[in-house]
């Protein structure tokens, strides 16, 4: 397996609390990797470290072999690592389509002059963005609300929109923090399909999820955290039977 992302000995302390404790693992450049664990196990903190929102106390993050530990989120995004948030962070005043178009930022060009004089290439890029945004919204099933302002979308659709927006950045690895939270069974099944398709299209996916059905369905590899430590890693089947995991999480 070639690793797109490698986390080595990541540790993060908050005061006396060690939220992430000496965690190491690799994420394959294809397929879906899931991080699971009880509440407060350190999953989101781990995501924050990987994406650059907070620096680790110790340890390193390698992205495609390059040490990116100290880089800011935007720099990591530019290298192909894009995330979503546990509590959705949409651009409330923009429509669904416009939210997705923001996602194309890295893949397009143009500053003040392009905005003011709108040369042909800029207009063309704008049309392309429009088309691609429509396609992405279609992928996550939000075509109907394309022109609705994000702030009035119900919670579940907001989550989907956030995924579509992240995809627009054409990431090499996509980090999803509890994408199925707030979705009902139907919807999360549809989400599972979408994620599989994303993975099949060649984007590595790293996701946090409490919905075990979803995890079992789509994950190729599962990392289990508890009290900040990695207590298990393996295929879903293996992890499901791991006594430590059963004790700590699945109960």
């Amino acid at each position: 397996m070639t690793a797109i992302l490698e986390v080595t000995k990541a540790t993060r302390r908050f005061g006396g609390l060690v939220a992430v404790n000496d965690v190491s693992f690799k994420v394959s450049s294809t397929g879906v990797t899931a991080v699971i664990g009880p509440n407060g196990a350190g999953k989101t903190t781990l995501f924050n470290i990987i994406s650059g929102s907070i620096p680790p106390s110790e340890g390193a993050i390698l992205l495609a072999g390059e040490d990116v530990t100290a880089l800011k989120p935007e720099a990591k995004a530019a290298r192909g690592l894009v995330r979503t948030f546990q509590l959705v962070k949409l651009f409330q005043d923009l429509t669904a389509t416009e939210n997705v178009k923001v996602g194309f930022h890295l893949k397009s060009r143009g500053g003040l002059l392009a905005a003011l004089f709108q040369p042909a290439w800029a207009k063309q890029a704008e049309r392309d963005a429009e088309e691609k945004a429509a396609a992405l919204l279609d992928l996550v099933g939000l075509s109907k609300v394309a022109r609705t302002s994000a702030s009035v979308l119900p919670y579940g659709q907001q989550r989907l929109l956030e995924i579509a927006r992240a995809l627009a950045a054409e990431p090499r690895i996509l980090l999803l923090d509890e994408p199925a939270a707030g979705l009902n069974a139907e919807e999360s099944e549809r989400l599972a399909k979408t994620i599989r398709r994303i993975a099949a299209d060649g984007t590595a996916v790293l996701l946090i999820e409490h919905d075990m059905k979803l995890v079992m369905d789509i994950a190729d590899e599962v990392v289990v955290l508890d009290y900040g430590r990695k207590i298990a890693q393996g295929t879903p089947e293996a992890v499901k039977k791991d006594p430590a995991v059963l004790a700590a999480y699945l109960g």
Partner: protein
Amino acid sequence: MTNSPSTTSPEAPGLARPHTRHFGSAAVWALSAAIIGYALVFGGYMATIVAFALIYAVFVSGLNVFMGLTAQVSFGQSAFAAIGGYTSAVLTTTYEWAPLPGMVAGLVFALVAAFLIGFPTLRLKGHYLAMATLAIGLITYEIAVEWESVTQGYLGISGIPPLGIGPFEAVSDRAILSVLSVIVVILAFAVTRIRRSRLGRAFSAVAGSEEAAGALGINVSRYKLVSFLIAAAIASLSGSLFVHVVGYVSPEVFGLHMVILAFTMVYIGGLGTVAGPLIGALIISILPEVFRGMKDYQDLAYGVTMILILIYAPKGIAGVAGALDARRSA
């Protein structure tokens, strides 16, 4: 700002629906045009008021880019207006430059200053950003007062030549109003284009959530700076326009008064809308004249009216018009 109750408000003024009819917005533009037209035809002191209003509209357009599109606060834009205004004034009087190169020089100074100031300042958020920019505005004011050898302090600089290129000079009311109107329209056009561009979306992203913007690869501090520079450049332009139109400059022109007035205009007009700065500037400039006859009660009436407008049109006049359009199309 953090705990703003508005973060839960659903409607985005005007932004959300590109494919709707714009009766409300058209009405706003028509009203503005009517006011300017009246001043053009009848002249008189209405021309002076509308001229000032248009200069303010220029200033507020800049503020609107920074505050409306990018959702940052600056109480210090008067600093850049002052830099533009004083550069124009000093270069055209003491050094006898022509107005246009003076203006360009002012613009360059303002941009350099905005760059140096913006770099450290824009890291701040919320009230701290408001405070820091307020400090910048006040410091600039104090410098204008104290640096007498250049600015002549409160005495001010007079005898500044009118706007002009070569033999053409904007001296008459009509010429001045026409030049200013053209500038305001160009700016409105530019803001429309920016808003619908990649740049404008980056601004909106910064406005919506800096964290999410960063996660999508948008360099938040860079775009804040770009927005700040655009606003500073426009502010500087408005400062230069002021001194050439009036022929005089003194520190009070660029005091806290200017900032408060501009804030009022941008909110009464409609934050983040294209027509907002113009209609806001016109209304806030004309309002005191409506109450002029009330003498001692003028300010009282003005204050009360402002409170009423804010209460009944909290998203500003252009904002309300935009919302009406949205409702009609639904």
